[in-house]
């Protein structure tokens, strides 16, 4: 759809956030006493702790749509026919999501739709408005210009904010985004020619952030099948199978399913995030394990995100947020390894 343009002064942001928080569930970047910034629900009294000058939040928006653990259904009686859904899908506004993370939601939308639609995820997405905050500076830890997922998005957002001096130029990209602007109309003014020009300059300047690798070259190397096995051995020797890189990844979606009975007697079939770096991820009841080695698991992850996803969805499974590099206790560096693959 055609983008509409508006402007909001940075000074008016607290007022807007307060107005949202009084009517809807607001999720925004919140700083804590040690300087960590997380995407968290914000109450009306709390809007002063919202931070909008951060590289990225520690958590990605994934958990608000695909929670780390949730009930698929509840069963009270002895029969499957008595089972009922219990999931909650609230109207939420996510404010200040980086473009890489918004792109990651676009990726997850593809995973959870298709021939089999995952109602739990898709209902939450339907009821959400995601307000993307574009990046005007290059950061060391991330690499969206290599994965094509930033520093600003051309599509796939509800609303995108372009920071320009003391104001944000606001682009709508979906019907949900336009409805949001209408809902909070008093905070937004129509953009003028100068706003449009300034925003375009800011976007052009940010786009100059040099890529760290060519994702096409990496795709070619991986799909040639000729990447040297030493790389997978290196990853396997460092990887502690803790799963942190996969849980923190904004696009990783794997889950396991288990039946749970709570102390109060409620019985549910639940899903919980799972990680393909866990031993046993593919092990079957008889003991056979088609991918039992660390090298096999490493190769599967790189192939999946950087090669197979491009074949399957036409987009990279890595959005370049760089969180996995930060979280790894074994010092496996995803970005450095991608560059090794590119140069191999």
């Amino acid at each position, binding site marked *: 759809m055609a983008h509409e343009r508006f402007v909001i002064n940075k000074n008016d942001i607290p007022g807007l956030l307060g107005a949202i928080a009084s009517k809807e569930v607001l999720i925004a970047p919140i700083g804590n006493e040690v300087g960590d910034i997380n995407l968290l629900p914000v109450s009306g009294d709390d809007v002063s702790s919202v931070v909008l000058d951060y590289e990225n939040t520690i958590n990605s928006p994934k958990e608000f749509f695909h929670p780390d653990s949730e009930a*698929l*259904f509840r*069963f009270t009686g*002895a*029969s*499957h*026919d008595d*089972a009922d*859904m219990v999931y909650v899908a609230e109207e939420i506004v996510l404010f200040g999501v980086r473009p890489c993370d918004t792109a990651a939601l676009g990726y997850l939308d593809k*995973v*959870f739709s*298709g*021939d*089999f*639609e*995952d*109602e739990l995820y898709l209902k939450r997405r339907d009821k959400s408005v995601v307000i993307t905050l574009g990046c005007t500076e290059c950061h060391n830890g991330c690499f969206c210009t290599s994965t094509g997922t930033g520093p600003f998005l051309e599509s796939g957002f509800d609303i995108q904010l372009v920071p320009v001096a003391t104001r944000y130029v606001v682009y709508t990209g979906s019907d949900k985004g336009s409805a949001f602007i209408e809902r909070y109309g008093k905070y937004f003014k129509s953009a003028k020619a100068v706003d449009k020009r300034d925003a375009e300059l800011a976007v052009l300047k940010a786009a100059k952030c040099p890529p760290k690798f060519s994702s096409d070259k990496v795709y070619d190397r*991986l*799909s040639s*099948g000729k990447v040297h096995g030493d790389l997978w051995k290196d990853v396997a020797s460092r990887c502690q199978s803790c799963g942190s890189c996969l849980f923190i990844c904004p696009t990783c*979606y*794997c*889950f*396991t*399913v*288990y*039946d749970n*009975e709570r102390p109060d007697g409620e*019985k549910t*079939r639940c*899903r919980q995030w*799972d990680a*393909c770096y866990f031993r046993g*991820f*593919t*092990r*079957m*009841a*008889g003991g*056979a*394990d*088609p*991918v*039992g*080695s660390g090298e*096999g*698991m490493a*190769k*599967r992850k790189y*192939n*999946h995100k950087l*090669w*197979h996803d491009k*074949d*399957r969805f036409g987009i990279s499974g890595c959005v370049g947020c760089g969180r996995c590099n930060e979280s790894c206790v074994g010092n496996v560096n995803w970005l450095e390894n991608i560059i090794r693959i590119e140069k191999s």
Partner: protein
Amino acid sequence: MYNKHLYIPRACTISAIREETPDIKTFKLSFREKWEMEGVDLVEESDFRPGQFVQVSVLGLGEAPISISSSPKDRGYIEISVKASGSVTEGIHGLKEGGEVGLRGPYGNAFPIDDCKGKDFIFIGGGVGLAPLRSLIRYVMSEREAYGDITILYGARSSKDIIFREELDGWNAVKDTKAYYTIDRPEPGWSGNVGVVTTLLKDIGDIKGAKVFVCGPPIMISFALKGILSFGARDEDIYLSLERYMKCGVGKCGHCYIGGKYACMDGAVFSYAQLKDMEVEEAAGV
């Protein structure tokens, strides 16, 4: 779909249980009410294609992916043959006639029977791996005249572990159909074939142009492949039904990922040519 919701299984009644071996039972599952799937009344049709599987649920224990072992022409019910090997399958074994399991599915692709009219068939099964093949064998036997020679080769650990033995003997008596079975080691009182299933290959004669269907444990698959290839089978004529760990069955949970595909949606049936083309992470059994 048998299920009304993606993740909520539909209740089915266990209408019969047959003990095949000490650890494999066949369960006949009947639908409880008229239930239309894409315009087909399942109570009349049991609509699925040979090679597809169902997620079988026991409340409190979870689900396991199990191939359907009956034919789509066995109407009003489906059969599953379950080996007790984990918590869910052991739970299924503990159920009695009249009891309930939940079903989701049918899921997965299927054996490519439409391309196979008039062709010769070779089935190679090991252990409980005969179950998905039985679905196709029963289907083919029900319109026997539409196909060429059929050879069924089956291997079990011991004489006690042979499943569908009466059916195997029955198929062997049908014109242009041979069914051989073998056990891994000699046993007192056993006068039949001894040795792994590939030792039966010597009896099959000319296999050029035959469609080959393989299912069994990984080690058996790798030997069966070597054997059948040495007899001149073409990569694209060999179809394998792969066993993988699965949770959702619908391409979301990630467990059955194999070389960029999901065994639950893109498989579980793959041709050997397809598998060779895929950059499989590790090639256990393929």
